[in-house]
């Protein structure tokens, strides 16, 4: 491994030819270079900031009013709130579109991926055409296209397209009836959240029961029952509220109900369609990765089609699907930052406004980057854990 043992080297040179010694020297030089360059950059930056009279530090987050309006927000927000709250509003908007996008893209992508394996030639070719078209056009172009379609071609609110007399689509966005805020809805939400641990617990019990007695309970049906039941229970416990507000045209716009802005809609449509094309390929390759012998073996053992899919194919396909799927989810979340091009107030967009107002570029960009980095690393860690859990246990 090392040259030290080789005869005939001068003793003084042995340190020079020692790999460990050289490695230490290389690394010391590298660290010194990185520190020197870093020092130089920081020094330049501080000088520049001083010359331009720009404050430094994160104080502006909590002690200055943001002073700009944000067109849509999950939590209450107005111009007198702090920059920190503006960033949180942006972050929540990013999370909102990313979560919905992930769910929709997974559904659409799975359908298209399965269609690519359909025995029907036409369906196969159509899904291939969809995937190839979507994947080879930049997502930003698609987002701008959808946004322009939604704002330029849809009618004004007065001539809005409508369905069931309560859903309206116009260039101001999509208007839906919404439940009136009441305790019952919140309790229903709580019930739905509680149903997750309940279902997990029930599955464990059912598993143990099956291991002990060999009898399989209809776990799927009962799980659905638990979810629906707890939700309804919460709703009933809160007095079963049934009041809805419908959007109504007043002047030039709608009042009441819930509004989905065209910005959000365009972003959601664009991201969903784009990511679905990638997910479809992942689903397809995942299903193809399970050899046909597995299906035949399961059939030979007397499993039905549904059981074969659920117990034999899916667990094996998921092993192939999960890692690339994770990176697609991360890509969707990162691509949601393109919202800035169509005016949806996500994290990067609020960051950009704050940057222009305060001039504190380094702090603003650092906040945005570290949030995305934290989300990415968090999801990667979770997925590594999940991957290890479902990995093939060879005996």
């Amino acid at each position: 491994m090392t040259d030290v043992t080789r005869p005939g080297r001068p003793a003084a040179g042995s340190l020079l030819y020692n790999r460990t010694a050289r490695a230490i020297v290389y690394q010391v030089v590298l660290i010194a270079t990185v520190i020197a360059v870093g020092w130089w950059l920081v020094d330049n930056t501080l000088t520049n900031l001083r010359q331009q009279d720009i404050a430094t530090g994160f104080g502006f987050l909590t002690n200055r009013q943001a002073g700009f309006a944000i067109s849509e927000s999950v939590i209450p927000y107005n111009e007198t709130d702090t920059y920190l709250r503006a960033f949180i509003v942006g972050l929540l908007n990013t999370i909102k579109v990313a979560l919905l996008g992930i769910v929709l893209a997974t559904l659409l992508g799975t359908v298209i991926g399965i269609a690519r394996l359909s025995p029907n030639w036409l369906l196969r070719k159509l899904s291939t055409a969809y995937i190839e078209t979507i994947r080879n056009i930049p997502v930003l172009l698609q987002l701008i296209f959808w946004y322009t379609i939604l704002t330029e071609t849809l009618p004004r609110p007065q001539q809005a397209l409508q369905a069931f007399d309560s859903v309206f689509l116009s260039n101001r966005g999509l208007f839906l009836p919404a439940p009136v805020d009441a305790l019952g809805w919140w309790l229903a939400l709580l019930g739905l959240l509680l149903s997750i641990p309940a279902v997990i617990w029930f599955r464990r019990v059912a598993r143990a029961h099956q291991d002990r007695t060999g009898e399989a309970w209809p776990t799927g049906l009962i799980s659905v029952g638990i979810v629906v039941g707890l939700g309804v229970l919460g709703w009933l416990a809160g007095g079963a509220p049934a009041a809805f507000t419908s959007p109504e045209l007043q002047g030039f716009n709608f009042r009441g109900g819930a509004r989905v802005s065209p910005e959000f809609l365009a972003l959601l449509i664009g991201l969903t369609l784009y990511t679905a094309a990638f997910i479809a390929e992942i689903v397809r390759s995942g299903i193809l990765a399970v050899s046909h012998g597995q299906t035949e073996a399961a059939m030979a053992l007397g499993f039905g089609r549904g059981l074969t899919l659920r117990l034999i194919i899916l667990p094996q396909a998921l092993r192939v699907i999960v890692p690339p799927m994770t990176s697609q989810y991360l890509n969707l979340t990162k691509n949601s930052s393109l919202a800035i091009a169509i005016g949806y107030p996500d994290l990067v967009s609020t960051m950009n406004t704050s940057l222009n107002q305060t001039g504190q570029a380094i702090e603003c960009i650092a906040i945005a980057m570290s949030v995305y980095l934290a989300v990415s690393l968090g999801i990667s860690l979770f997925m590594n854990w999940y991957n290890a859990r479902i990995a093939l246990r060879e005996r």
Partner: protein
Amino acid sequence: MASQGNQQQLPSGILWLRENLFPNWWNALLTVVVVWLLVELVWSLADWVILHAVWGAVDPEGLVPYDEQWRLLLSAAVVVGLVIVTMVRLARGSALAAVWAVGAVFIAVIMWDMVASIETNASPEACRAPEAGACWAVIGDKYRFILFGRYPFDEQWRPLLAMVIFIGLIVFSCLKLAWKPWLALVWAGGLVVCAGLMYGGFWGMRFVNTELWGGLPLTLILSVVSCVLAFPLAIALALGRRSDMPIVRAICVGFIELIRGVPLITVLFMASVMLPLFLPSGVTIDKVLRALVGITLFAAAYLAEVVRGGLQAMPRGQYEAADALGLTYWQKMATVILPQALRSVIPPLVNSFISTFKDTSLVVIISLTDLLLAAKVSTADPLWRPYFVEIYVFVAVIYFIFCFSMSRYSQWLERDLARGQRRDARQKVAVMARSGPEGGGA
């Protein structure tokens, strides 16, 4: 499967139809529904794209004059023929490429007169007719701006020539005979010539500042130059990530994961807003260069992971054999490991390049007039206000042609390399290549 018994009696065409379109009743129903929808869609699209399209004020109505419509129909027929030839696999590989090339030239010839008249007669009036379809006249009016941005009008042959050189370089690099060390020199030469053409300032060519660069040449410059610059950086990062030295490894892993964890747009913001702050006061750095720095750093992190995949897929025996020969680290890497590892990851490298090509459209947000922003600006012209779909379709088709042909090349290459050397390492790489630059994760 009920057809198994009488397979012999049926002609192969009907058998194919039965197996692929009508295998059972729900698929038959599906086929009928899909065919009906497709016919509706294709008909209305054809109506919009061709039959009722306005190609410029060729005649007072603005529709394609009756005497000229045969050109459109013939072109459409040629395209349909080409698609059929491709789908039924009458021709493959280079023969197929040749067929398409001949078809393209044919269409170009028969369409030439008409297109030439569009350019001179573009007017929005005809598009406002109630029965008018697509308003291609807007492209006739705007294509110079979309393709070249605000580059001085009289000098636009220079970015055109630079673009041709760029595309030539890319196509040349796709040939296997060019995969030699001297390719780097060819690229260096090509880039210098392109830079000369774009900047000018000698031999009677006017000096053109980067602020006026735009359109497709800018998109190509950003994607190609950043990939060329990112490549050596990526190799260094990949080697560093696999190094024995903990500090070197930590720095490389940190850089790669940091960049891969954040959206490109934040990197671009950093390059455009923070870079001027980092440099000594008084030093200014132009906008295109800033974007180039941002995209290069971003691409390097992704390329590094691809290169690392190639390094990991190399069998241990290669490393050990090189060590046994007494080669130093750099000799080992330069002569044994890298030539093999890089060759095997060319398909995923091409995929990374496609991603970078698409990603350059993000410079819209730091307001560089690339192909996409030029298109977006064109849609804002009040004269042509309602015809944004035509402009976006035009630009999307340009992006599609570039990305689709490159992805086809990468798929072909992957199969070709796998066929050439059926060895374990190659197959491992092929698996990695399939997951692409966006798949996998570390």
